[in-house]
């Protein structure tokens, strides 16, 4: 073929459509940037994207379509855990490299050596949040208000194990269902328990609800959020006043001076007229990791590309300097701690303690 075909699965409709859009826009940006510089191995890249609506049963058919009909050589997994987890074994079987952007389920990389992840495991991000809580904020008592899904639960686990190991006490722990808008009953209870910090997970909608309603009932507890908060929408919906001072752990650092990060942020803004977020950035990187793999392999042969990706070292990504992948394909990169100041995310700190960020721990 005269182009190199790369696939993308993303939730362009359905409950996660907003994330799907950020993913698609970012990857398209990356494709154009690469092609503008002459492509890779002298060929242009052609993107084949499909909408899995965030559902496993949709994704499995589409994975086959990408491989068997579109003949892609590698795939960016730009969707959530459930669909990505469903397709990982298929790509393994087809021997097509898959780099998941932000899906968090452990089984994805466990499917085999063709499956990689450029996002944090929940436990890693949870430990990162733990560092922010006890090491940066010096919390003695903590609370947890956890979103009820795989990510929320794993994160809570990582967080809890870290803070407890550092001697902090968990005084409130509650799981809430996804999509919950009325968080008052929980927050009122948090107010009663009065921990120093609370880890409150959620996607931007729940996050905005938590932060806004906490502001309304004048909750004093410092809120630590996670990558789900990492969206300009969060600040917009919560209102800058309520959002101010919220700390989150994520993988995009807006104050990162490295040109690659600044260029992405600038071009994204210009091209789409909106703020980039972590989901887009992470998949942008996932795509570039594949391109980099092809370039270093010097071929599109999936086995060689896979080996090249596995051998990645100190890759200069938008989401930080990626140290590489573990033998099972989990990314090793620093956790970014950000704080909302004057209505925008700013750097608060970086967690790069190998003990914390190594997914094998």
């Amino acid at each position: 073929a005269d182009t190199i075909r790369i696939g993308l699965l993303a939730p362009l409709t359905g409950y996660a459509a907003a994330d799907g859009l950020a993913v698609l826009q970012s990857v398209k940006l990356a494709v154009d940037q690469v092609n503008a510089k002459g492509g890779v191995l002298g060929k242009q890249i052609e993107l084949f994207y499909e909408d899995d609506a965030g559902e496993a049963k949709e994704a499995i058919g589409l994975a086959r379509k990408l491989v068997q009909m579109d003949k892609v050589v590698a795939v960016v997994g730009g969707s959530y855990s459930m669909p990505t987890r469903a397709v990982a074994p298929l790509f393994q079987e087809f021997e097509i490299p898959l780099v998941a952007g932000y899906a968090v389920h452990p089984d994805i990389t466990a499917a085999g050596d063709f499956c990689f992840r450029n996002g944090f495991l929940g436990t890693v991000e949870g430990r990162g949040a733990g560092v922010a809580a006890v090491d940066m904020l010096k919390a003695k008592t903590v609370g947890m208000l956890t979103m009820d899904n795989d990510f929320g639960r794993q994160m809570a686990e990582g967080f809890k194990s870290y803070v407890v190991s550092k001697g902090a006490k968990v005084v409130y722990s509650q799981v809430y269902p996804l999509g919950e808008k009325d968080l008052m009953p929980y927050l009122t209870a948090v107010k009663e328990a009065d921990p120093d910090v609370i880890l409150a997970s959620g996607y931007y909608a729940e996050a905005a609800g938590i932060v806004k309603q906490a502001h309304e009932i004048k909750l004093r507890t410092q809120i630590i959020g996670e990558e789900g908060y990492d969206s300009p929408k969060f600040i917009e919906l919560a209102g800058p006043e309520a959002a101010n001072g919220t700390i989150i752990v994520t993988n995009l650092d807006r104050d990162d001076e490295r040109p690659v990060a600044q260029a992405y942020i600038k071009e994204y803004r210009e091209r789409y007229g909106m703020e980039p977020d972590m989901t887009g950035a992470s998949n942008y990187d996932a795509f570039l990791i594949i391109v980099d793999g092809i370039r270093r392999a010097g071929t599109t042969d999936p086995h060689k590309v896979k080996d090249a990706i596995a051998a990645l070292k100190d890759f200069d990504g938008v989401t930080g300097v990626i140290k590489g992948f573990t033998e099972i394909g989990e990314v090793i990169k620093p956790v970014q701690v950000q704080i909302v100041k004057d209505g925008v995310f700013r750097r608060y700190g970086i967690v790069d303690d190998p003990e914390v960020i190594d997914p094998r721990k």
Partner: protein
Amino acid sequence: MGGYFSTVAIMIGIYALVASGLNIIVGFAGQISLGHAAFFGIGAYSTALLCTKAGLSFWWSLPLATLITGMIGALLGIPSLRVRDDFLAITTIGINFIVRSIFLYVPFFGGALGIGGIPTPILFATKLRGQYYLALVAVLLALVTWFTFLFVRTWTGLATEAIREEETAAGAMGISHVRFKILAFTIGSAMAGLGGVLYAHFVNFISPDDFGFPVSIMLLSMAVLGGMGSIWGPILGAIVLGSLPELFRPLVQYRMFLYGAALLLVIRFQPQGILGEGSVLSRLVSRRRQ
């Protein structure tokens, strides 16, 4: 035939099977159920647990999980004895939500993570994949359809229909509404369970959201669209509603809208289903016969 097509065809086959079960409950027994995905899920979870935790093979698990689902269906059919019509419809929505919550919240069922590693069935030392799996689904669907065909022609079928039409009069004819309603729920649920088994071993991993309320809606739409109470209806409905989204796939952003609009148009202008009485298709067929 590419893998993509067999995937779509397998899903259609599975849905046709599950919708056929719903057809027994709604079409023949007249008990509106909006929670059929719960039984689909119970079948899938049963086989997942039987195979991953108890180490059973697919071929043992298939009948066992079907049976288990049928039994639970009998149990969950009990509300239909107490509440009727729209009350029942909404109660079954409730059942769907509660069953899904149990999958989600009881750690035994794997929580939000679901259950993975459900084995692909093996027959004569070949893994049943792609076309082979499609063949398996087709054979089972044919069996179920044949069963339905017989069911409606038995005294049981007649009694079930009588209850649908007039429960008090059916009672005066010696028909126990308890027995036949529960029976309909049992059979219908067992079919859904069978579909769930096939689904689980095809996708290889399952999670609570695969069996949520929207799936129930889709199943009911299939049964109604094809022609409720007609044996081929659910199959046709599954083919139409299963392939429409695939046809619209190139229209990414507009796909689901078109799907909704298409469903609306069909139901609005063929309210008795594509195969139902007075539909374009059935009129064509009967004209030819004359």
